[in-house]
């Protein structure tokens, strides 16, 4: 029953959040700020993780190919597919929950317990739309870009690692990256990243916005936000995959 209550409250929150901003100029300035904080702020972490994931995929794939009948270019193919289909969306998504999601829950939770949200409400500002909408828009906009960067750096890292370790010559790797390329895989990946952007921003916002109590409760809300957002993200990953790839 508790979960149904949360789903209902979350839906009601979204119905108030997804409304036309009161001042478009203020909304866009907050949007740009959120893009900068959540997007550009997360870029170094995304690039570092993607670099190592790309390299590890090459080593793991190469170490599992023992048959001389399997061509080396399959290492490039596997790296590309792994990065596009799963790592750059789902794994990066899970990492962003820890970085961005917990920060959203903490920020809104702190604003709640220090009465900053009450201050907005008393002024007549739709606090949900004012605080949460720019975050949702920003992450829905920036997450696909982060995904593209992640795919790119992962594939390039794989190429360097393959070449430097001698596991896969560069020419073979590039051939594998180009082999049987389907644009629909990229579309699938970008659709996932848009949905994940929405999930990563809105669910932690729900947990933060409705915090009651003090600093300890803000911490608990942040933890709950990470746990539940991860579960929803993995569930949606399964749903989208079944809908688009089967």
């Amino acid at each position: 029953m508790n979960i149904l209550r949360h789903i209902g409250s979350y839906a009601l929150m979204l119905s108030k959040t997804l409304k036309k901003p009161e001042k478009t100029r203020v909304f866009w300035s907050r949007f740009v700020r959120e893009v900068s904080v959540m997007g550009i702020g997360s870029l170094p972490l995304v690039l570092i993780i993607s670099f190592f994931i790309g390299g590890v995929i090459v080593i793991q794939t190469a170490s599992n190919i023992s048959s001389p009948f399997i061509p080396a270019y399959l290492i490039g193919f596997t790296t590309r597919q792994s990065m596009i289909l799963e790592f750059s969306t789902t794994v990066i998504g899970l990492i962003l929950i820890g970085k961005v999601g917990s920060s959203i829950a903490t920020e809104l939770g702190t604003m709640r317990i220090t009465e900053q949200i009450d201050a907005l409400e008393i002024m007549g500002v739709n606090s949900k739309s004012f605080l949460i909408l720019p975050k949702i828009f920003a992450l829905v906009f920036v997450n696909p870009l982060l995904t593209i960067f992640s795919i790119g750096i992962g594939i390039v890292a794989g190429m360097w690692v393959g070449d430097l370790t001698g596991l896969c010559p560069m020419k073979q790797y590039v051939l594998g990256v180009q082999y049987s390329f389907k644009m629909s895989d990229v579309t699938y990946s970008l659709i996932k990243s848009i949905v994940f952007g929405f999930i990563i921003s809105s669910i932690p916002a729900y947990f933060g916005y409705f915090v009651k109590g003090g600093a300890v409760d803000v911490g608990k809300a942040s933890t709950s936000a990470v746990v539940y957002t991860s579960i929803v993200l993995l569930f949606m990953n399964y749903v989208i995959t079944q809908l688009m790839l089967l």
Partner: protein
Amino acid sequence: MIELQNIKKSFGDNEVLKGVSLTFETGSMNLIIGASGSGKTTIAKCMVGLHSPDSGKVLFDGRDFHNLNFKEQKNIRKDIGFLFQGSALFDSMTVEENVSFPLQMFSSLSKNEVKERAQMYLEKVGLSHALKLYPSELSGGMMKRVGIARAISAGPKYLFCDEPNSGLDPQTSVVIDELISSLTKEFNITTIIITHDMNSVMSIGQNVFFIHKGNLLWKGSSKEILTTKEKELTDFVYASSFLKEVKNQIISK
């Protein structure tokens, strides 16, 4: 004018307000006093719509706030300034941005005009030098003054102050009281202060309302408090043995 008619409010089994009726005249300075947990802040939160009363009415110039639609409530809220106990300044904004915020959201003023207005109000509260500072860089007294500047920047008709002196030293408290009092007179605002600071009551208390266990037990002026026979109020006013001693000395003279 703000009128409260038989306001009742409970949180679970705890009946916080047991039918409170109050009237605040336009342009008057009103102080709601009472012990911690007596229901003072709940009254203010019911008035500004942060809590919905279980029964009773809150009338702003005759309009029943809790029976209005969202848009009509919003119009009344634009006329309300609220100073929170902890100031509730937006941490992500500078002092200037905090004070500009209500103007930015609800006025049709240009960017420069908003800036000028914010600077004018910050000058009134003596903080024209702190425009670019963030709330985390301010002292408690400065935060209260920024809170006051933000509360009055959009030209409200009603100003609510929840414990404006809590956590401040006596000298800063006097400064804050005088500031609220002078702004009330200057802009003809209906001011409602929630406090248990007797210094404030004696220095700026035009109309004083004493709330005890969710009921309005007494109302009058700050001068009348000294001569009241209401036991709960005298217990509250002369809670410290020092004040009791002073009172006894005055009586014996």
